């Protein structure tokens, strides 16, 4: 019972950050994602104890999923349950894909891969999202590069790319979804 007070306080602060983020406060949203990634890392590390190399990949995949699906969070709903449901869904999906891949390829790959990086800090992901990003079509990639990586405004991005402002917004939105899809189908 002693831990619950601290947990509640943490849930409260996370929820507060997310709600502010959802109403447009970018720095609150940044702080939310930052705390969330630490939370996800702990959550997934416990559940992927035998595959420590893959923890950070899944942290990133879950972060992207939570960002893409953030409109499904209802302000009255317990936040931790929502986060854990998404992370668990991605974890199960990841393990299923992995099992399928292991069936198709040789188990050799596993024997080498296992112990090698088990002691690393796991801050580095094995999969490079930057490389996957490069595979997106221009109408999605350019808005993401200009707006989300270079921090330009919608208007500036529209000017640079010759796209309309609404096409830029749609491009970012669909691009991030496509990125999640690429992770699912490629990894």
């Amino acid at each position, binding site marked *: 019972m002693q831990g619950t007070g601290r947990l509640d306080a943490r849930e409260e602060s996370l929820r507060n950050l997310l709600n502010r*983020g*959802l*109403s*447009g406060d*970018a*720095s609150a*949203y*940044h702080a939310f*994602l*930052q705390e969330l*990634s630490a939370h996800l890392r702990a959550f997934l590390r416990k559940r992927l104890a035998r595959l420590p190399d893959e923890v*950070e990949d899944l*942290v*990133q995949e879950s*972060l*992207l*999923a939570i*960002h893409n*699906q*953030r*409109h*499904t*969070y*209802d*302000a009255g*709903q*317990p936040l931790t*349950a*929502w*986060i*854990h*449901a*998404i992370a*668990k*869904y991605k974890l199960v*999906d990841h393990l299923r894909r992995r099992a399928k891949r292991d069936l198709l390829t040789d188990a050799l790959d596993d024997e080498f891969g296992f112990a090698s990086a088990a002691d690393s800090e796991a*801050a*580095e*992901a094995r999969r*490079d*999202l*930057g490389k996957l*990003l490069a595979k997106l079509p221009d109408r999605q990639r350019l808005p*993401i590069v200009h*707006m*989300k*990586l270079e*921090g330009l*405004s*919608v208007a500036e991005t529209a000017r640079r790319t010759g796209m309309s402002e609404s096409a830029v917004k749609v491009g*970012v939105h669909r691009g*991030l979804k496509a990125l*999640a899809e690429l992770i*699912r189908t490629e990894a």
Partner: protein
Amino acid sequence: MRTDDLVTMLATGAGAVQPNQVPRRYAIALGWGALGAALLMATLLGLRPDLGAAVLRPMIWVKFAFVACLAAVSLLAATRLSRPGLRLAWVPSALGAPLLAIWLLAAFELTRADDAAQRAVLFFGDTADSCPLLIALLAAPVFVAVVWAMKGLAPTRLRLAGATAGLVAGAVGALVYSLHCPESGAPFIGFWYPLGMLIPTAIGAVLGPRLLRW
């Protein structure tokens, strides 16, 4: 890309999110789906010719209420299944209430019937062989629309979500079908209607994991 960089990337220019997207998406889906089902019904089947007289009798309202209750409860289940971390809680058992009500009414009608021949008429009506299939047919556009709505949200129990999408589609399809259907026996409605709704439900359960992944 390091995780910190990903966090920065996701947060940059993220902007505000419109609230109430779950109800909004379902409202759009139901609007288009019901419209599609109504057009299908109007072109392929037509309204029942005695609809004007039928709405003056209670049985058609019993039928509407039965199907509408199933549609409402399954819709509530669908919206919950579209949000990660929400429990279904009492919702599935609430599906039992309209079923139980119609079965009680059916039992009452059957016990009051004079003989086996009349009971058979109450149960089979004139259209038992086509009713479930036509309900499933009218459910098709609604199913497509509800799956679209779910795909834009975040179902995590895909088979159950697919089945529920099918049930919503079946119930809305049945609601539209009831404007065509000439039957008025509670035993007929209590058996053939749910059977028709179970067809898209089963299809949804089979296709859910493939259709709804994200």
